């Protein structure tokens, strides 16, 4: 967030990419895109392209990391070097370590971890093309991959962000809006109970703007959830 308000990001209720304030980017979802993992999914969210895969439950090594009461959900968020304008140095950086940590916690809230003590459920997410909102696209994709793998879950996890541009609260920030906007609030929820499992915020929001952004992000996530349901039901019909 640079808070650079000189840049006109919204004009007469229309955003740079033609969207209305409360409109999501176009989203596509697909399951079972990889053969080797137990489960996988692909999500295209605007110009973001992410692919997620699940291995496990499998034995966790080293042994001291095992939990005899439940499975560990390990989440690895990785950006491909070619996913951004200036090549990203391969390997984990501080940003991806943080995103992996909070996303793993979000998924642990829904996975029936008690069913698989001493194991790890590995979720790998590769960001192949990044255009703002990758943590939300990645987490949504990971949740689909877990479902594709048949890992028992209490609920899905679905993520979406809202933010502030030129003093307007809008849904699902695009790249310029993220770079030159005033605030970003990524949220992940469990759609059945509408609980929050991931919440971050950065920028400048008043009390009321925060409330509006939080609720808008939750509404956006519920719209994404409808797409997830269609994708999951569609894949079941194909398997029969």
């Amino acid at each position, binding site marked *: *967030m640079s808070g650079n308000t000189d840049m006109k990001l919204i004009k007469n209720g229309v955003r740079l990419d033609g969207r209305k304030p409360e409109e999501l980017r176009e989203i596509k979802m697909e399951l079972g895109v990889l053969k080797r993992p137990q489960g996988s999914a692909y999500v295209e969210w605007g110009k973001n392209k992410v692919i997620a895969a699940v291995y496990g439950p499998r034995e966790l090594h080293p042994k001291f990391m095992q939990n005899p009461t439940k499975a560990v959900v390990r989440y690895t968020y990785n950006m491909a070097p070619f996913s951004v304008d200036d090549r990203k140095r391969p390997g984990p950086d*501080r940003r991806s370590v943080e995103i992996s*940590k909070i996303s793993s*916690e979000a998924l642990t*809230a829904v996975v029936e971890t008690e069913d698989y003590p001493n194991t790890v459920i590995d979720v790998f997410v590769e960001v192949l093309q990044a255009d703002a909102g990758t943590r939300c696209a990645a987490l949504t994709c990971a949740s689909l991959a877990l479902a594709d793998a048949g890992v028992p879950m209490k609920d899905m996890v679905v993520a979406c962000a809202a933010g502030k541009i030129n003093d307007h609260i809008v849904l699902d920030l695009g790249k310029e809006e993220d770079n030159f906007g005033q605030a970003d609030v990524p949220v992940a929820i469990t759609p059945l109970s509408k*609980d*929050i499992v991931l919440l971050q*915020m950065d920028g400048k*929001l008043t009390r009321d703007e925060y409330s509006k952004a939080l*609720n808008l992000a939750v509404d956006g996530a519920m719209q994404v959830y409808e797409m997830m349901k269609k994708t999951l039901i569609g894949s079941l019909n194909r398997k029969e």
Partner: protein
Amino acid sequence: MDVTKYIVKDYITNLLKEGRRVDGRKYDEARPIEVVKGYAKEKSSGSALVKLGDTQVIAGISVGLGEPYSDRPTSGIMTTSAELRPIASPDFELGPPRENSVELARVVDRGIRESGCIDVDKLFIEENKVWTVFIDLHMMDNHGNLIDASALAAMAALLDARMPKLEDGKIISGEWDGKLPITCTPIPLTFAKIADTIIADPNMQEEYALDARLTITTTEKEVNAMQKGGEGRFTIAEAEDLIDKAFKSAKQVRKKIES
């Protein structure tokens, strides 16, 4: 796996069901804060020791010369690092930063950066030359809520910090030229959810028991950074309610840090 943590978790959770906290505090009561600015002032630009109950964190500020980012050629830059030193807890080990210290540093960094409290436009010197502000956080004694203690120490140290003296483009060590330009005082407040109870400023035993935590950094009228952690959930109503609590509680703490 550490069995003690499970026993402590049970104990803390059951205690809260009876409406009590392990150290007798009220649900929304933070531990006492003690601030010592200029704790290591002979060499560093700024420093502060903050005690949050028994938790102790030392923050040091170094101001040096650097190159600006290409997309903001006329702004100074800042970076925040956190080290969970093994001196602070038997749980901390030597080695490269792990996810907890990375998250800690990034949450502290976000509150300071997004509030704009360091006036980075005033840190421009000349083309391709700006001041760089390093915030280094040293955990000294971990009794819980390192995030708040670290962010408060960072803020106190920033308020304490002086600008190095520049002569012929070089820094004259040991001599100072005014204060680091600071515009506001962002204050973090971390809340923990244990079973269905929400408490402010969790201590270490409460951290073993927490299902989820939420850190909210605010300035006078704005929220600048938030971070949810932990494997549990918050309801939307809780996430709204805690904002009001954060704004309210931050006032007292801000006075303490600014004084």
